[in-house]
């Protein structure tokens, strides 16, 4: 919401300062996004008097003017027909910059040097040109800066108004809050030439149908329009607005249209009542019918767009067809134009959710609908109507022959809310005397009266947000000032909610990955992206096609991050991510299933270069390979599913485990990139088994190496399983020492050597060679029986 500082000054009858307004509003009611000075681009312009006007020797339509700009007299070439000696005009001297960035230089015009420029309203960004250059009525002496002499300098205060405070969407509402801050009072300025709003207050008729000045009015949809007022003003002259009105609207960023439209806009920005004026001559009947629209009824709105209405929308119609989408936008047909002489003036309260749904369905948000959907002051309609008539008659002439009609089938009283002193201190932690509560509430328009042990508080019509006791307590707290409450820590009781195991699990996983020493960096990627699986969940209203699906895996997002890093010229990239992935639920209308995943991507050198490696180039450094991938996969499985088993993948490349896999990835890689590897596992959350102490060994272990010949298809993991089972508790450790393929071995086989470490499980006894030999031969027998694996014969 943009408010003008000068407009507020007029309402509060006192000078204000933009930054100070901002600070006070922020502390008391709503934050201010910015304070923007307007017309600052006129700071170079001066007030100047023309002393003498002569014909330009070389051009009929130009004149030569002797101009007093305060600092001596200069000669200026002027093309305006209205320039006259003795008059005062805005003057841009040589060196001045005008709105739009034009910098004035001394230059010859048709052979005569011109030392500056006398300016028109348009050139100053102050409106449309009337007769030529802008004639000033000011007592300020020549040389006075234009902005000091003419009251156009202003500041726009841009307020971030929350959805619950529609009363702040007008100058009066903002002034009401500032009046508390400054100890001032709010008074609507007298309209120049107006009657001071002395129009008879109409009395609501008890029938929903009535007539005003020959126009039949029927309120058939009181649900959509609980209160509807209408007046007829005959004999207006549509034309430009007076300067004061155009300036007011301009100061809040509104374009001046004509005096009638400007008058309704002025009322909107002054007191928050959206008004609508339409051309009586265009109304069939003449009648105004407030009803639900018929399905598919059409209207061409002011913006020239043809729109289809539905029965869920309220329309203001003539005897035949809709003329206004209630509270949203009027029609092009009944728009006020130059030829309009009689107008129908509407002030209404439209039902907020109806207006909101209508606006959304039609894709229109207007200044009016914005206010109606937040709720305007239903009780203030007659005042708004009176002021609007006063303004229109004073600037456009015409007359109201009959008092406005006020259709209000179910009149409402101001709402009352009770406030208990004890509840105030229960919530705020500070006892606030009732007198102070009353004073604070009445300062912003509440009427408080004691009733039993409570305060009965009458809520003003402009505060639809205040419906219950706690709303009043907030008023008390903010008007007293949040800063006035102490911030001392007081005792508290500990909560009953235990820490989430998943958070502890994720924290442990992150720490262990970092501690692995391979330089993994945590990434946080967007959970939105292109579809990463056939059943990826689609977002119904995505921002873009690239971000239209929820991820069901982390790896695709991480690979995109690798590609981003490659594009920056990085070759060594090691990223991991832990995060949520989404899968469809059984019933599509349910929330999707969420799982936690861990993924790792690896590419580039295993270690940073070091001088001990010689002056080798980076390409000689060992790159990470499939075994680095397996190391990280085993680490990941160990962290996410302790006890999980890593196996070669059934597909023949990479590995897999329950809930995860690890493979070499294809990606859009530059030529110089190293191979890219990735793994992804599902994170299991649950209690970790308690670690049981193992006795420390006092006896040395016995080591035996065995070399075996494995046929294709026999995995090392399978061999280890058999060896461990047969070796029993005495086989403490089993480790692969070596793999060999080639000469001396049958085609399609490989030799693998394991080191077996044997120990007494009780840790007290030294094992004998005989014991070990017997055990080892049982292990080899088991291998031969189950896997047909034999010991490799010493090469012949």
């Amino acid at each position, binding site marked *: 919401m943009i408010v003008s500082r000068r407009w507020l000054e007029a309402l509060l009858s006192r000078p204000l300062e933009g930054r100070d307004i901002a600070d006070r509003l922020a502390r008391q009611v709503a934050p201010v996004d910015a304070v923007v000075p307007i017309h600052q681009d006129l700071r170079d312009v001066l007030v100047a008097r023309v002393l003498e006007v002569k014909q330009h020797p070389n051009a009929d339509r130009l004149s030569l003017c002797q101009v007093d700009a305060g600092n001596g007299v200069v000669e200026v070439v002027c093309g305006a027909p209205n320039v006259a000696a003795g008059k005062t005009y805005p003057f841009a001297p040589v060196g001045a910059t005008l709105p739009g960035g034009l910098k004035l230089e001394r230059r010859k015009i048709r052979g005569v040097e011109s030392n500056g420029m006398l300016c028109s309203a348009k050139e100053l960004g102050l409106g449309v040109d009337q007769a030529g250059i802008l004639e000033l009525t000011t007592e300020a002496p020549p040389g006075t800066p234009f902005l000091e002499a003419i009251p156009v300098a202003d500041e726009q205060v841009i307020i971030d108004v929350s959805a619950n405070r529609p009363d702040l969407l007008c100058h009066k509402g903002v002034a009401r809050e500032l009046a508390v801050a400054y100890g001032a009072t709010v008074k609507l300025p007298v309209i120049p030439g107006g009657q001071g709003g002395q129009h008879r207050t109409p009395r609501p008729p008890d029938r929903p149908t009535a007539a005003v000045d020959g126009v039949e009015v029927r309120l058939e949809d009181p649900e959509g329009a609980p209160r509807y007022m209408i007046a007829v003003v005959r004999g207006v002259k549509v034309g430009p607005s007076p300067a004061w009105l155009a300036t007011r609207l301009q100061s809040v960023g509104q374009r001046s249209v004509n005096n009638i439209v400007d008058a309704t806009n002025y009322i909107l920005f002054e007191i928050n009542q959206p008004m609508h004026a339409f051309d009586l001559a265009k109304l069939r009947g003449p009648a105004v019918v407030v009803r639900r629209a018929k399905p598919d009824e059409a209207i061409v709105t002011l913006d020239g767009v043809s729109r289809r209405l539905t029965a869920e929308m309220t329309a203001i119609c003539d005897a035949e067809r809709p003329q206004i989408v209630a509270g949203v936008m009027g029609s092009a047909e009944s728009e006020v134009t130059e030829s309009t002489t009689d107008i129908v003036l509407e002030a209404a309260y439209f039902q907020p959710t109806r207006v909101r749904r209508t606006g959304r369905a039609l894709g229109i948000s207007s200044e009016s609908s914005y206010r109606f959907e937040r709720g305007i002051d239903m009780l203030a309609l007659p005042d708004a109507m009176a002021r609007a008539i006063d303004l229109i008659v004073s600037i456009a002439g015409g007359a109201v022959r009959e008092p406005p009609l006020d259709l209000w089938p179910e009149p409402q009283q101001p709402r009352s809310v009770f406030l208990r002193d004890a509840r105030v201190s229960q919530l705020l932690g500070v006892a606030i005397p009732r007198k102070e509560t009353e004073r604070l509430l009445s300062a912003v328009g509440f009427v408080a009266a004691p009733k039993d042990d409570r305060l009965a508080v009458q809520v003003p019509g402009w505060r639809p947000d205040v419906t219950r006791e706690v709303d009043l307590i907030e008023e008390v707290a903010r008007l007293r000032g*949040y800063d006035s409450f102490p911030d001392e820590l007081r005792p*508290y009781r500990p909560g*009953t909610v235990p820490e989430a195991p998943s958070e502890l699990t994720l924290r442990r996983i992150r720490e262990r990955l970092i501690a692995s020493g391979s330089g993994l960096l945590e*990434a946080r*990627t967007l959970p939105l992206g292109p579809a990463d699986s056939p059943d990826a969940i689609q977002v119904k*209203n995505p921002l873009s096609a690239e971000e239209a699906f929820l991820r069901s895996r982390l790896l695709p997002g991480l690979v995109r991050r690798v590609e981003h*890093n490659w594009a920056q010229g990085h070759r060594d990239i090691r990223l991991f991510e832990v995060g949520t992935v989404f899968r469809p639920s059984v019933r599509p209308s349910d929330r999707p299933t969420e799982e936690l995943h861990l993924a790792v991507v690896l590419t580039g050198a295993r270690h940073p270069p070091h001088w001990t490696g010689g002056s080798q180039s980076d390409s000689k450094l060992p790159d990470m390979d499939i075994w680095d991938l397996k190391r990280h996969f085993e680490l990941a499985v160990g962290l996410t599913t302790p006890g999980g088993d890593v196996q070669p993948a059934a597909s023949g490349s990479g590995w897999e485990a329950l809930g995860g896999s690890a493979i070499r990835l294809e990606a859009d890689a530059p030529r110089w990139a190293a191979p890219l590897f990735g793994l992804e596992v599902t994170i299991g959350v649950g209690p970790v088994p308690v670690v049981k102490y193992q006795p420390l060994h006092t006896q040395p272990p016995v080591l035996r190496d065995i070399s075996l010949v494995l046929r294709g298809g026999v995995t090392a993991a399978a061999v280890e399983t058999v060896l461990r089972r047969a070796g029993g508790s005495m086989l403490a450790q089993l480790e692969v020492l070596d793999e060999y393929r080639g000469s001396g071995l049958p085609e399609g086989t490989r030799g693998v050597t394991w080191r077996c470490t044997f120990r007494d499980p009780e840790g007290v006894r030294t094992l004998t060679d005989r014991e070990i030999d017997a055990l080892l031969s049982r292990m080899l027998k088991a291998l031969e029986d189950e896997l047909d694996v034999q010991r490799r014969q010493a090469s012949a």
Partner: protein
Amino acid sequence: MPGRRQWQGGVHIVTQIVDEICDIFKELGFTRVVGPEAETERYNFYALNFPKDHPALDAQDSFYLGGDVVLRTHTSPVQIRTLEVYKPPIRIVVPGRCYRRDPFDASHSPVFEQIEGFAVDEGITFVDFKATLATFARRIFSPTTKVRFRPSYFPFTEPSAEMDVQCQICGGSGCAACKQTGWMEILGSGMVHPAVLDNCKVDSEKYTGFAWGMGPERIAMLRHGIPDIRLFFDSDVRFLEQFVGKQEPGAGSQDLESPTPRSRLLTSE
């Protein structure tokens, strides 16, 4: 000659900040819990006292997954989920990802991290609320950091407030970063609205509470001078490496007597 080096790994700066914030609140008695990222409208809006068809919903422009399922626009649904399971006293912090239909720019991201805080018990007042959050601000920034609370609006809190801290760039004198106000907005908060308690069948006459939501990314940007929120998601290794191994106690935590002040190790006396 230089020693051997290793690649250095580390957790993301946002994770670091989240952990740091949650750890501070842990000292104030808050346990850490989480909730789902896809929510129903009931949990995300209506149980939190959002009126139906109301402009208050505009600030929460949501991604829909179909039916009444949305990607949560804040971590506040976990308030409801917690009240449905646990009885007061409740003191929780809830970190998690949230989603809003804001196109990416330097200060907005359609996906962002939020930390919710929520306390409900008998006798909790506005004073406790201010004290808890002011204590937090002094711990994460510095013991002398000034804070201010000012009115705001959230359907699920009343009175509602935003907390500002003294601008961390100009120190409060006014600069471009704080729009000349000397203050920077850190979090939205307030006393738990009685309607939220009523919706969860908790007696709102007996119990009161407070709640807040803050953006760890924003706090990281303020504290580390990071100019663009998109940097958090780019995962450029040059960015990630800058914050490796930099976990330090918050500026507001102190030893009673520092064993060896770092300044003494770095200056020769």
